[in-house]
């Protein structure tokens, strides 16, 4: 279970993902429409964004649990054994970790000047698929880790691990969406995302070694 917790925490990278979600959902990101919004509209928009966030998190959690539950048939379909998939998952998680390490939270779009439009309140639902689920929440690393942990530790461990990671992600994202973001927060977020990226690389190495050393 500890391995599942660490791998899925690293694969989700709550700090980077929360930053991406905050960027996607924020109404204070420079949208002209958002800047002109009045108080009631802003409150409604905040609720809509929160609901979008929660729905998105629930969807990805459900997806991970579903993949963990179906891990055996998926591996059968792919014609690979659990250790082989573990090595492949290590490559994916490790690559994500490397990107986070190099780019910090910007991977999820926080610092991307070409990022999607911040969602207007009334259009929050339209942003559920893109950019909330894709590319922020549903990533190759999360899906690969979900399948690998489901195959190795069972669906219960995968559920617990993804729940922990996503609850942290949700709290962080909600805080970033609701609150002001002084420069210190941006620095902490960037450093934190890189640190979790390092953890992802370490866990990927551990997964790869584990896969190689399994008979």
């Amino acid at each position, binding site marked *: 279970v500890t391995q599942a917790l660490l791998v899925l925490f690293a694969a989700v990278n709550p700090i980077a993902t929360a930053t991406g979600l905050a960027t996607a959902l924020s109404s204070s990101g420079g949208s002209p429409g958002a800047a002109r919004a009045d108080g009631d509209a802003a409150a409604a928009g905040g609720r809509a964004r929160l609901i979008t966030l929660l729905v998105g998190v629930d969807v990805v959690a459900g997806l991970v649990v579903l993949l963990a539950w179906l891990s055996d048939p998926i591996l059968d379909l*792919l*014609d*690979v*054994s659990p*250790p*082989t*998939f573990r*090595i*492949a998952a290590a*490559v*994916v998680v490790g690559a994500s970790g490397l990107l986070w390490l190099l780019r910090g939270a910007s991977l999820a779009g926080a610092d991307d000047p*070409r*990022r*999607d*439009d911040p969602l207007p309140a009334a259009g929050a639902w339209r942003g559920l698929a*893109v*950019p909330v689920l*894709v*590319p922020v929440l549903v990533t*190759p690393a999360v899906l690969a880790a979900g399948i690998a942990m489901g195959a190795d530790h069972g669906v219960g461990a995968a559920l617990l691990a993804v729940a922990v990671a996503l609850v942290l992600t949700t709290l962080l994202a909600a805080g970033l969406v609701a609150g002001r973001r002084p420069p210190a927060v941006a620095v902490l977020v960037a450093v934190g995302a890189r640190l979790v990226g390092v953890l992802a690389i370490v866990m990927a190495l551990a997964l790869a070694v584990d896969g*190689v*050393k*399994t*008979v």
Partner: protein
Amino acid sequence: VHDRDDDPGAAARPVSVRRRLTTTALVWVVGFTALRLSFLAPEHCPTVADGDAVAAAVGAGEWIAAGQGAGGHYLYEYDRAADEELPGYNMVRHAGVTMSLYQLADADADADADGDEALAVADRGLEVLLDGLEPAGDGLVFVEPGRPTAQLGASALMTATLASRRDATGEDTYDDELRGLGRFLVGQMGDDGRMLAFYDPASEAPVPDETSRYATGEAGWALARLHTLFPGEGWDRPARRVLDYLATRRDRVEGLDFAPWPDQWAAYLLGELAPHGLDAAQVRYAGALAERFGMLLRSESQKGTWPVAFVDPRARGAGLGVWVEGAAALLRAAEAEPRLAALAAPLRDRVACGAGILVDRQVTADEARGYPDPDRVRGAWFRNDLTRMDDQQHVLTGLLAAAGQLQAGPPARNPGGLS
């Protein structure tokens, strides 16, 4: 969402949903394809029955028999595209091939002509070895004509060969030679279990400081075989000393990187001694070897879908055969040693997978017809159009070791109509 195609100012605007989805999908597809062609390639393990493995082993034996010359030597290396025998010979491999034929005779003892033919061919090969036996102290050593020194590996595998002949025939004809060879092997051993790889008949002493990554395990296993044949004579003590050396020091002392070196002879030694008990270090070593052989067999099963246009990654018959041999020997250890019991099921899977691949890669009679000399192609394992006698030896032994771990019953497939 912006339609950037119609808007000349779109370059400065955010990425469209469609473009974001397209880009993401492209990255996912490219990434998955790259993984599918490498780390996530399908594991292809053809299903074969015990009968298929034995039939393929018989085919290998027939290839060896067809290539045996009047003097008892075997066809060493052959290029099927050029229909050309390649020069060279190796007496350690000669001993190994002879041993594998006795194993085939033993496995086929109920049957008939296959077993008798294998025995006859092996006996002719054994004559070459017996002709080279010379006294060495109080023991016997095989000395290859024309070589200044005797190779430990040749004497070790000759010991194993004679032990296999005893298994196949039940005869004690060569028990004196077995014990004499055993005494020679013990004389090559240092206090720490390290084996010296060469013996100088002129000075009647081991050549100092020279070791071999192969011969130490071969010698240890040969001594363990003597213990099995002659329990109570004390052959287990030197065998265990060698095993201790292999398990705790060999890779470091002899500079073998990426420990443990995948030594199937050490696996044989573990399998032979496991019924009599292993210590903690030996159990750890067995586990580490199992991991190594398991990984090698698993990755070999994935190579069918690797981009062979750029690389030909498949192991030669001898390589894959050795891995099956090693995994099967460790399976025997796992079945005897409770601390290794958890390895039995995965090892059984890997052995079955390796055997399936070996049967699948054997050249069938139909495939052989496309070459200038089909008789020298049929039943063998080639890589880059080349095969060497130990390709057949290790595959034959590996398949016989796998038989009994596969689906019971007669052949489920026709591995080429080899007979």
